[in-house]
């Protein structure tokens, strides 16, 4: 089986979010870019499965400008076999999915994180599947290959389900698919330099949504503190002031 893991390049999760250009653009000054945490978990599981002998090849792909190559190199260091960067500024989810479709059609299993921690679209995986006519499974928290057949665990309301699904398929993965992202070994980091990273030109695609402007949430009022021996007062505030009890 051939796996394609989609990699988003996102600001480090501790980044202080700021906007520039009259709140029309995200301020990238001093931002450290990382692999989207859910994509990193997807890659980690793919590498584990490859080490167990179930996968022929893992490719990582990204739609982005050259700045994203460091992120792809890290994915190669973690254990992907090759990388593809589609040369384009990612616009909306449909635009990105259309770009990825030209690459993803050659794979059996596509893995993508449940959302990207920047624009929180949660849409690329589903759109890509629909464009290619692949099935898609969302909220995947476990993946195994048993006798050459893909076996998935997904989160459903109140629990989990084990399912079989025909390939090709887009799996939209979440926490649980792997516990911690894999730290690349030194050997992997050295090898990453020699692994192929192909740059593919963008295809024409429509942009269906546009980000007009951004805003930060209003500052929060200070926390009202209650004495440790006066829990009664806390309950009163929640009942009478917040009206949530």
């Amino acid at each position: 089986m051939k796996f394609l893991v989609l990699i988003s390049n996102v600001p480090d999760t501790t980044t202080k979010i700021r906007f520039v250009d009259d709140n029309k653009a995200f301020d990238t000054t001093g931002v450290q870019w990382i692999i989207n945490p859910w994509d990193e978990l997807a890659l980690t599981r793919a590498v584990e499965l490859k080490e167990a002998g179930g996968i022929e090849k893992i490719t990582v792909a990204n739609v982005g400008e050259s700045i994203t190559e460091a992120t792809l190199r890290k994915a190669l260091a973690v254990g992907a076999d090759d990388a593809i960067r589609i040369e384009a500024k990612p616009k909306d989810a449909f635009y990105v999915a259309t770009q990825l479709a030209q690459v993803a059609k050659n794979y059996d299993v596509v893995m993508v994180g449940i959302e990207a921690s920047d624009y929180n679209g949660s849409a690329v995986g589903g759109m890509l599947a629909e464009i290619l006519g692949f099935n898609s499974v969302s909220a995947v928290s476990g993946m195994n290959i048993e006798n050459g057949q893909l076996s998935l665990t997904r989160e459903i309301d109140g629990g989990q389900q084990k399912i079989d699904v025909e390939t090709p398929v887009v799996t939209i993965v979440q926490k649980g698919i792997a516990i911690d992202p894999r730290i690349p070994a030194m050997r992997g980091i050295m090898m990453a330099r020699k692994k192929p990273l192909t740059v593919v030109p963008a295809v024409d695609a429509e942009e269906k949504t546009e980000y007009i402007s951004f805003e930060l949430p209003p500052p929060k009022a200070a926390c009202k503190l209650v004495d440790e021996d006066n829990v009664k007062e806390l309950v009163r505030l929640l009942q009478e002031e917040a009206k949530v009890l």
Partner: protein
Amino acid sequence: MSLLVYTENWDGKFKKLSFELVSYAKAMADKLNLPVTALSIGNVADDELKQLGNYGASKVLNVADNRFDSLDNKALAEAVAHAAKSENAQIIIFSHNNVGKAIAPRVAVKLNGGLVSGVTALPESFDPFVVKKKVFTQKAFAHVQIDPDIKILTLAQNSFELIETENNAVTETYDPQVADDVFSTTVKETNKVTGKVLLTDAEIVISGGRGMKGPENWGQLEELADILGAGLSCSRPVSDEGWRGHEEHVGQTGKIIAPNLYFTFGISGAIQHLGGVSSSKFIVAINKDPEAPIFEAADYGIVGDLFKVLPQLIEEVKKM
């Protein structure tokens, strides 16, 4: 033309979010002078279907076809798209949860529509169609314009109040005509808890962190949750240590929740944790460290020993 709402049920009862979605659609529909149609897939009794009318659905399409029980995304998307076409829907609304996230993008491609996910309010304008959504894991908002005629939205949970209206709903059985060969998901095993409050649907969530010291101390949290009818969750270190299951982990990489009241015990409030809970209406923090960042996010707090606070709290809520 109409607005179409994708509703969800849990063991035959509509989730609260379904009523939120219908209320939201109705508020928009009134401005556009259009009717709201609700789509229900699953085994839901007629009385329950009628409930959707209380929030403004004028028509309820009932798909009682157990082939959809396998939650095959491709088939579900085809069913929604079929209904959207037959209802001539201009705006299609899903919840921003696992189900909505799975189906809405597929429906958007099928109908050549524009999708915005995680919407938090009614559109700011209809022409151009602009909505507000959360970005950067709830640390900011964006205003997004949808260009195509068909607009598809996933609504962030707890971002719209329930509004009851006069009930004029008609329910009808609906066949979305999805062929057998579209279904390609086989369910082998289901493990689900019934009769417990769904974390993502709970109005009150009780959450424990590393300050709880160990899994043996969770009894009091469970008791409190039982009395309040609350969901139970935990921070990442707790699930990583194996004190509680991963399904209870809330935070940026775990479940994202938005209850009315989020009660934390011994959670310091790392930025990654807050990313998953900051849409809660009210946050209460109980932590012995006055410097813990959770107090920056909380509305009410107690700086003190949670093991002293918990028994008192249980006594107080019992009296309610």
